[in-house]
């Protein structure tokens, strides 16, 4: 279920964008709302900076995620292939 505005408005206020911006960055707003938020972020420097801050925080959190899972992935892939009789080997 995507976040959407309770009513249709051509332009959003900074307050509305403040409530929507994180969902927008997470891809959790519907298309129409996303387009309106994006338009506001283009025009409003303050909200644009706000969005940029959250974007950087999200990116840093993703980079901080434990990254040493490659060996586990390899073993699990082998396990999956053993379950399906190597059918996925060429996929």
């Amino acid at each position: 279920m995507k976040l959407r505005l309770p009513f249709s408005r051509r332009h959003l206020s900074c307050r509305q964008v403040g409530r929507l911006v994180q969902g927008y960055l997470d891809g959790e707003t519907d298309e129409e709302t996303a387009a309106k938020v994006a338009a506001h972020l283009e025009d409003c420097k303050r909200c644009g900076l706000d969005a940029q801050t959250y974007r950087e925080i999200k990116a840093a959190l993703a980079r901080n995620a434990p990254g040493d899972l490659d060996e586990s992935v390899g073993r699990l892939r082998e396990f999956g292939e053993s379950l399906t009789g190597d059918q996925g080997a060429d996929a």
Partner: protein
Amino acid sequence: MLRVARSITRNNHDAEDLVQETLLRAYRSIDRFDGRHPRAWLLTILRNAEINRHRRRRPELLRDPDDAQREPAAGGAPSAEATALEGAFDADVEAAFQQLSPEFRSVVELVDMAGLSYAEAAELLEIPQGTVMSRLHRARGRIREQLSTTRPHAGSAG
């Protein structure tokens, strides 16, 4: 899936076991899968496998914060100023993240680190989607507040 398991179990070995168990269960019950929403289906199996692992103890999605023995944020020495700046920013974000309450940390881990949608995180944590959203947004707001005390211009880290 491995990242989700990692955020639940908090160590790589248990995470791998949990995903293996999930794959096995999925393989055995593939006949009952209707082909729709495979991610949600697998996450449900994973959650059930985790609950079973702890024999009806409440799912340990929200562990003691002191258990979080996380790896260093970035490996290797920074080779350029930009990398150093990014590394310092990441370290500040990590420090702020560690100060969050377990409830807030778990949604950040599932959405920002494991890449789940709000709906998937809600299903896994057995809380309403609105609660995922409000916790996540408040958690990031707190990280941001924390950053503003360590770096006055948190919006221009790069």
